[in-house]
């Protein structure tokens, strides 16, 4: 039915959006990337090195950005509203203009859980408490007064994940391996530091993740304590006193740390939820966008012409996100090639 070149709006120019755009171009379409940030790349652009091979994030991102540089990309552009026409969608953009498209691809990604909501951990209150993102940025910039030269560091897994009280019951999937990656990087940075990981379960499902875990144990001597941190206090010297239960010995443990890293979990991008409601795409009870079918059609919504890629439907690793972006591109291609 491709009587004229259809317009495909891709909301969010993170790796999912960029990869999908790249594939769509390869398939002969002219997608439009809408990004509210001043630059493309999304979260990955903020990351330093990526598990499981410690490869620089730039190695992944730069080629992707280079190959999508020709594609029409609206930066600093938010979407004030979307409305559904017959078999088209009208995006009203923050600059007042509107974008009429035949297909919308949600590559809106995720939001990092706001760690300050877990008040007992004192993020934003104690000087020595930071998040996984803060640490990752420190790896990039080396500027963060909170870090200094720690002798004892703690990682708290599942901050705002698998936590009814935080309104997030699902597992954020990538935090365990991220914590291990960052713990290893910190140990390399500060070899004399004792590093503790407080976990509920270790979920190291991915390729090479387990080897990584073994290395963290044997080669880096990182201490893994099975138990959730209950509360954090501040000692007179400004260091943080962390309390948890070591559930394997059934004893409460207390440790004073120079740095506490909160592994903030992954929640759905609230903008995505808003857009979705506007065009009647349902949001799942975990807060992420609801696919037509979680097995066979994860990239397709219940609405014709609306597609998903990446973390907007749930926590994803980078390979998963890229794979979904590609399959979303194909789904869009199928959508335009087969007459409805």
């Amino acid at each position, binding site marked *: 039915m491709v009587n004229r070149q259809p317009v495909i709006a891709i909301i969010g120019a993170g790796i999912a959006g960029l990869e999908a755009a790249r594939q769509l171009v390869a398939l002969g379409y002219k997608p439009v990337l809408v990004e509210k940030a001043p630059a493309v790349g999304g979260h990955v652009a903020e990351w330093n090195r990526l598990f499981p091979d410690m490869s620089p994030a730039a190695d992944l991102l730069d080629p992707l950005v280079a190959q999508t540089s020709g594609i029409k990309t609206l930066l600093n552009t938010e979407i004030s509203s979307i409305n559904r026409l017959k078999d088209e969608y009208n995006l009203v953009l923050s600059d007042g203009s509107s974008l009429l498209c035949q297909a919308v691809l949600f590559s809106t990604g995720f939001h990092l859980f706001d760690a*300050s909501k877990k*008040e*007992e951990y*004192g993020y*934003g*209150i*104690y*000087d020595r408490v930071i998040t996984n993102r803060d640490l990752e940025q420190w790896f990039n910039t080396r500027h963060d007064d909170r870090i200094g030269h720690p002798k004892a560091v703690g990682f708290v897994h599942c901050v705002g994940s698998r936590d009814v009280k935080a309104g997030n019951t699902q597992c954020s999937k990538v935090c365990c391996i991220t914590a291990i990656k960052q713990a290893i990087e910190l140990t390399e940075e500060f070899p004399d530091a004792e590093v503790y990981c407080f976990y509920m379960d270790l979920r190291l499902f991915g390729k090479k993740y387990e080897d990584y875990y073994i290395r963290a144990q044997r080669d880096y001597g990182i201490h893994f304590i099975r138990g959730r941190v209950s*509360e954090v*206090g*501040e*000692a*007179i010297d*400004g260091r943080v*006193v962390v309390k948890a239960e070591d559930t394997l010995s059934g004893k409460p443990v207390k440790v004073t740390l120079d740095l506490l890293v909160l592994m903030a979990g992954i929640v759905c991008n609230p903008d995505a939820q808003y857009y979705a409601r506007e065009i009647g795409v349902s949001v799942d009870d975990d807060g992420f966008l609801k696919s037509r079918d979680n097995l066979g059609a994860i990239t397709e919504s219940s609405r014709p012409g609306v597609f998903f890629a990446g973390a907007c439907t749930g926590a994803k690793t980078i390979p998963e996100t890229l794979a979904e972006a590609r399959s979303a591109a194909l789904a869009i291609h199928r959508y335009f090639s087969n007459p409805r």
Partner: protein
Amino acid sequence: MIYQGKQKIWADYQKEIPNDHWFYVRSCIRQNFFPASERYFLTICRDMLGRDIFETEHHTTCGGIAYHCDTIPQETAMTIVARQFALMTEAGYDNLVTSCITSFGNYTEILETWREFPELEEKIRESLWKACRREFKKPRYVAHASDLMYKLRGEIAERAKFLLVSRATGEPLRIVEHIGCHYAKMFPHKGVGGAEYPCVLSGMVESWGGQVIDYPERRHCCGYGFRQYHVKANRGYSLSNTHKKFESMEPFHPDMIITNCPGCPYFLDRWQYVIAEMNGKTYGQNGYGIPALTYEELAGLVLGVDPWDLGLQVHQVAVEPLLDKIGIPYNPARKYLGMDEKKIMTPGLPTVLKCC
């Protein structure tokens, strides 16, 4: 410590506290522990700040202790509480202010339960009617007396005769605030400032010139724990928890502890003597203890009430060093004189803990 961080959280936990017209219910145990506190709460609110606070001799316990000791079912506690509400309704009030933290927790818990299970409320209304032919309206606002004091802290500051600063150095006093467990730990949104960083007391301290110190075991229970202290076999456990708090606050050298719960000031005060006897260890400056005051006593001091009228002589830990530090005048001779200016007996001195 990032102060803005706390302010941000406090902003999320503000509760509406009406300015006037309160129905006051007392605590079961405070009158024995620090009798002047409740009295001066009324004096300050009514006489000094001209608020309308009503109380009736007909009110009883709220059943909180019995409930938390598992000696009565919640329905019983609810019926008792319903009766207090009836008294309030009959008196024509709909703001309830409690002197006791456990009562506050109990009232809050019951109202929340009724909100979730209206049929239960109906049942209680029925049993109250059967029991004493009374009916009640639920209070529009339930506050703890410390909430009200928090609300009035500004007015008190305006009338302040003394500020919580060292007269010698002009430095603000270092003050530990201790919040009763039942204040906000059950329902964070019912307490001023929430459960993790409550500002109900720290708010008073700051507006009266003091400096709040935050220490690792700040959140920890004072150790009273109804099931612990009341059973002698568990009393050591009760003591141990208090000890834990003192060990944790020791390096901060606090000038005083301020609390908003009946049990806490009592145990934080008396256990200092017991610990001193057991371990020979004291936590205040040169052999003294750390005075543990109620917020009413503190307000009284700020407003220039005579320490002995505030009943500070019934504290185990001597308050004189604190008074001297602030520069509050007092007459040592009057310390153990009763209302009738006749000498009540002078207590014997402990062997370790230094007292005056």
